[in-house]
């Protein structure tokens, strides 16, 4: 995207109007952003731009479909669908599904009635919870009765909550009309290949029409059904996100083909996720030593697909019973025992009032960014670098370094600040003291970043980060992320220009494996 932005603004004329350029890129891609958001992605637009109103209404407060929304709005999954109809080499059904849910975390199965109660309980406690998804732990459409019964109950009691589901696609064509009938706006299909030869290395079998198919034959059935289902959904105006698991050496290069295939069939957003394959999860890939991608490999693939369509980069590969903002998990507050004992008061007006406040906060954030971005106008530099941010949400630098469970990663250039991913880390601060080993883990996770923005940081980690070449930045505590990052970048460029510092390219970083366990 950066390349095309530079292409459209000729080198002879420095980038004077970033907003115009970004809008052009957005238009070229068939979707709009509010000018100058720094990213030309429907899934990430800060404002409506030239997105058709009906689509904007669907994505603007869906945390999984809008990067910008995920700072403010929460989602929940209910685990009503344990059965699956295919076998994936990255999934071990003795635990949870490693694809649509985080591995190694045991979820409680819920009945549709329990799920409906849970949704009301969560919606009353977390008013910014706007989306209910069914993502397993098996496949929602291999459990159609439980899935649709759940939707039916929730549509009745909490009509303002958006319904969505995530499927492997095998049974999808059989259920598209039912999905449309429940006004499900968003469907995610996991598509890891469009070539059955490659599929045979990912899927040992599928169960279809009362028969188990294996090998290339199985993968052929699966890919045909997935693409047919995708076409049927987009024909009906249902927004489709495609999830793909990046498996180095198996489908990494092939995912560019997948990207083209799903784009041409009308998919709205493509989410390329790193393979999770720790041996302790007992998956086929975990046991054969199949590695996942590095942070640089993942970003390079996402960048190369971005010219084709909108990429999702804020996916947390969450579990089938996750609750809260994407970077957090509050499911432990809502176990079946607790929700059954809860008195639930579903107050639609209160939810609306709260969400109106969220919108105000969000607009203030966008305005601050635009203002800061204008200070970059006239700057002309090829420097692009990454910074890590410790945040609790709301688009603010509001987390202590030692309390961060993850860092959000932004790419800075003269085009602005662009969200490009996140890195999960172990809790550095445990019981008030830092542990050297976890600090090393954090440094490995953000080793490709030039700076880390935090609300607060202790002296020791500060020194170690500086030694590792990562500048700890705490002067923007509790300010807006993008505004602060742009201000810092501007001063960085000034220092490079004046010769005070030399710009050095950073190395690769590690994607942490395993489950994010709620803070003890």
């Amino acid at each position, binding site marked *: 995207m950066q390349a095309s932005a530079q292409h459209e603004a000729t080198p002879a004329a420095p980038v004077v109007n970033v907003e115009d350029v970004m809008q052009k890129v957005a238009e070229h891609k068939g979707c709009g952003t509010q000018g100058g958001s720094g990213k030309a992605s429907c899934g990430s637009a800060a404002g409506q731009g030239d997105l058709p109103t009906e689509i904007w209404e669907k994505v603007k407060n869906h945390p999984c479909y809008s990067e910008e929304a995920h700072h403010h709005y929460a989602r929940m999954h209910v685990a009503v669908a*344990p*059965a*699956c*109809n295919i*076998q994936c080499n990255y999934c071990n*059904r*003795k635990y949870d599904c490693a694809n649509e849910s985080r591995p190694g975390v045991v979820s409680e*199965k819920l009945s549709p009635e329990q799920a409906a109660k849970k949704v009301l309980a969560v919606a009353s406690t977390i008013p910014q919870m706007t989306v209910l998804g069914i993502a397993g*732990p*098996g496949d929602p459409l*291999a*459990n159609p*009765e439980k899935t649709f019964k759940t939707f039916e109950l929730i549509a009745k009691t909490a009509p303002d909550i958006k319904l969505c589901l995530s499927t492997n696609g095998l049974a999808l064509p059989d259920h598209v009309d039912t999905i449309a009938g429940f006004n499900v706006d968003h469907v995610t299909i996991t598509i890891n290949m469009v070539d059955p030869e490659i599929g045979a290395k990912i899927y040992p079998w599928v*169960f279809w029409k*009362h*028969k*188990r198919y294996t090998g290339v034959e199985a993968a052929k059935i699966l890919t045909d059904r997935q693409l047919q289902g995708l076409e049927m959904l987009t024909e009906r105006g249902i927004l489709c996100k495609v999830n793909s698991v990046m498996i180095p050496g198996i489908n990494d290069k092939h995912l560019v083909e997948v990207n083209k295939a799903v784009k041409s069939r009308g998919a709205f957003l493509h989410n390329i996720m790193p393979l999770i394959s720790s041996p302790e999860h007992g998956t086929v890939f975990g046991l054969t030593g199949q590695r996942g991608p590095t942070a640089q490999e993942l970003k390079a693939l996402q960048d190369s697909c971005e010219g084709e369509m909108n990429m999702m980069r804020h996916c947390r590969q969450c579990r089938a019973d996750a609750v809260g903002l994407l970077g957090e998990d509050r499911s432990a507050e809502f176990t079946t025992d607790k929700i059954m004992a809860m008195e639930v008061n579903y107050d639609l007006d209160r939810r609306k009032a709260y969400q109106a406040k969220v919108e105000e906060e969000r607009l203030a954030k966008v305005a601050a960014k635009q203002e800061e971005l204008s200070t970059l106008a006239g700057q002309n530099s090829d420097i692009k670098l990454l910074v890590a941010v410790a945040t609790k949400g709301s688009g603010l630098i509001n987390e202590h370094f030692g309390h961060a469970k993850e860092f959000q990663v932004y790419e800075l250039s003269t085009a602005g600040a662009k969200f490009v991913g996140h890195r999960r880390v172990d809790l550095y601060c445990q019981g008030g003291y830092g542990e050297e080993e976890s600090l090393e883990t954090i440094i490995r996770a953000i080793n490709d970043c030039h700076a880390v923005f935090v609300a607060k940081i202790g002296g020791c980690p500060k020194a170690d980060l500086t030694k590792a070449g990562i500048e700890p930045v705490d002067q923007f505590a509790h300010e807006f992320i993008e505004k602060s990052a742009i201000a810092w970048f501007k001063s960085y460029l000034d220092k490079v220009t004046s010769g005070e510092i030399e710009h050095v390219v950073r190395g690769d970083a590690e994607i942490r494996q395993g489950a994010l366990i709620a803070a003890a």
Partner: protein
Amino acid sequence: MPLKIISSQCTSCSACEPECPNVAIYEKGGTFVINPKKCTECIGHFDTPQCAAVCPVENTCVIDNSVARYQAPA
């Protein structure tokens, strides 16, 4: 001569339950079990036993040799 489910391997995913043409499968004590009186190994319905074909854990829905094999009515 029915199939049985080895309960220590059952993930309780419930995939087998709706596939059984004889409605012989039900949940009991956290895992699924097959009622041997109802199981016909899917003979007369499908080429292979459906529970075994859909089960995500290999060798978990297996023939129970302790019970006499099913004889299709002549």
